[in-house]
């Protein structure tokens, strides 16, 4: 059972962050289906999207249970508006080229992998159970993304240039992942979640090794320029994602599919 000394709303909000990151990144990744640069990549991207949608379903199911208002995972995905979504801005950005997509996967996966690894030791058994399932898939996603970042960074002149441009573009968004607010602090104090500073240290190690191998340069720019997604303050992009994703549920309220 969930820790009793933590209020439900805080835990609910935190679970939404996990679910929303997975759903929105899964949505973006799924946009590649049928349009990948090679058949093998197309299959791998669809697989990644499938994993992420699966994760969001598990987090939402738990969030709905914690909330206790009878909502379902689908209700949380399909019937909330943008200001109620708690994902980081990084995951809602448009895909760009395949280089930008893979760079984003890498930067997010390095965080996601370390976070889920830490969550397998959560004091909340339901959280640790979901994390244990998800981390296996994310470990593979991180492997694949970092491998591609290295190959493309150290590939041709053009692939190098594109990967560096992707890194430069995404960098001002990465800081939000580690920016702890009262919700993160409360979860860490309850032993449910790790301190984000610890995750950041591990993330830095992965990122710096991979970028070195990829012959890419760490941008000389603040990583926390674009923040606020976790509090429901998003980019303009999220509204369009939701308009598309939620269309049927909104147009035909109460219908079963």
């Amino acid at each position: 059972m969930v820790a009793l000394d933590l209020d439900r709303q805080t835990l609910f909000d935190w679970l939404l962050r996990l679910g929303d990151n997975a759903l929105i990144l899964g949505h973006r990744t799924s946009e590649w289906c049928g349009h990948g640069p090679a058949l093998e990549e197309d299959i791998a991207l669809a697989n990644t999207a499938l994993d992420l949608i699966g994760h969001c379903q598990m987090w939402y199911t738990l969030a709905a249970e914690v909330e206790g208002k009878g909502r379902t995972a689908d209700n949380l995905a399909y019937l909330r508006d943008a200001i109620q979504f708690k994902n980081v801005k990084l995951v809602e950005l448009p895909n760009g080229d395949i280089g930008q997509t893979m760079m984003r996967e890498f930067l997010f996966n390095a965080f996601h992998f370390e976070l889920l690894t830490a969550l397998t030791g959560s004091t909340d058994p339901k959280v640790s159970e979901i994390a244990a399932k998800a981390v296996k898939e994310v470990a593979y996603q991180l492997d694949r993304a970092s491998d591609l970042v290295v190959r493309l960074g150290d590939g041709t002149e053009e692939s190098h240039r594109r990967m560096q441009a992707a890194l430069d573009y995404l960098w001002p968004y990465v800081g939000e992942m580690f920016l702890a607010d009262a919700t993160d602090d409360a979860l860490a104090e309850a032993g449910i979640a790790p301190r984000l500073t610890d995750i950041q240290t591990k993330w830095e190690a992965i990122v710096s090794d991979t970028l070195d191998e990829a012959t890419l340069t760490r941008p000389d720019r603040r990583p926390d320029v674009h923040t606020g997604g976790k509090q429901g303050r998003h980019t303009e992009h999220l509204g369009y994602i939701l308009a598309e994703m939620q269309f049927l549920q909104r147009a035909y309220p109460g219908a079963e599919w």
Partner: protein
Amino acid sequence: MYAQMITSEKSSDDPELLAAFQARIDRGERIEPKEWMPEGYRKTLIRQIGQHAHSEIVGQLPEGNWITRAPTLERKQILLAKVQDEAGHGLYLYSACETLGISRDELFDRLHSGAMKYSSIFNYPTLTWADMGAVGWLVDGAAIMNQVPLQRTSYGPYARAMVRICKEESFHQRQGYTIMMKMAQGTPEQKAMAQDALNRFWYPSLMMFGPSDKDSVHSAQNMAWKIKINTNDELRQRFVNETVPQARYLGLEVPDENLTWNEDKQGWDFSEPDWSEFFAVLKGDGPCNEERLGARRKAWDDGEWFRDGLTAYAEKQAARRKAHAAE
């Protein structure tokens, strides 16, 4: 059926070799990649398997069109998995085709230039969520009609690819039918969407088998080679016989006023599709030809730097290993 209008190539090979080859096929033997085969057999198979492979990957697009709009998380996962399966089928089939001495890149070039075709059905748009049901039920259903017999085709790699593909296709057909069932039993708007999807996809699905070929010389040669097992008319009849009761079970109406049960043939009499439409679609004048081929070309062109980057890295690594070994 994902391969349409496959003309057979004439062989100018030694008549004795040809006779021995035909005898092997007649005995039910499988032909394997490194064995001797008539040039015409090889070329015809490249055309057929290649067209089938292209159909799988172009076929990702009409369904991929609804992944981001799927109405529930579960439906989204099922649809994603299905479209991913189609890409996987493309991969097996391109691999089977490569055993005949043509590369995947060459096959892509022929698709992109328009020299090779893909099934006409994928040039129709998917306009509502019910189309995800109709495509699974009718399009995958029609594909299965053709592919089940092809598990016994004479070319080993193709026959084995078909065994795996058929297992997945029958799952796809069931999931499509489940969507139709939900819609047909849903709200009046949902039922109307389901009926509309059936109206739009019925005739294009019948066209998937191609025009009647019972008197075609190509068909006769391909059947002798066991590249083709049944005539187009046989398969179409089988499809109609299976599908009409399924439509009735859903409470939907097949859009054909001539549909009548024929006691003598123990099958349905039905209207032929408009073959002028079929030929127009094949020529490029279908509702979505430009979009579909355009999307494939764009994916390939946009991915060029990506593929080149990976190749360059692999070459650098090989050079580094070589340099390291020489030290």
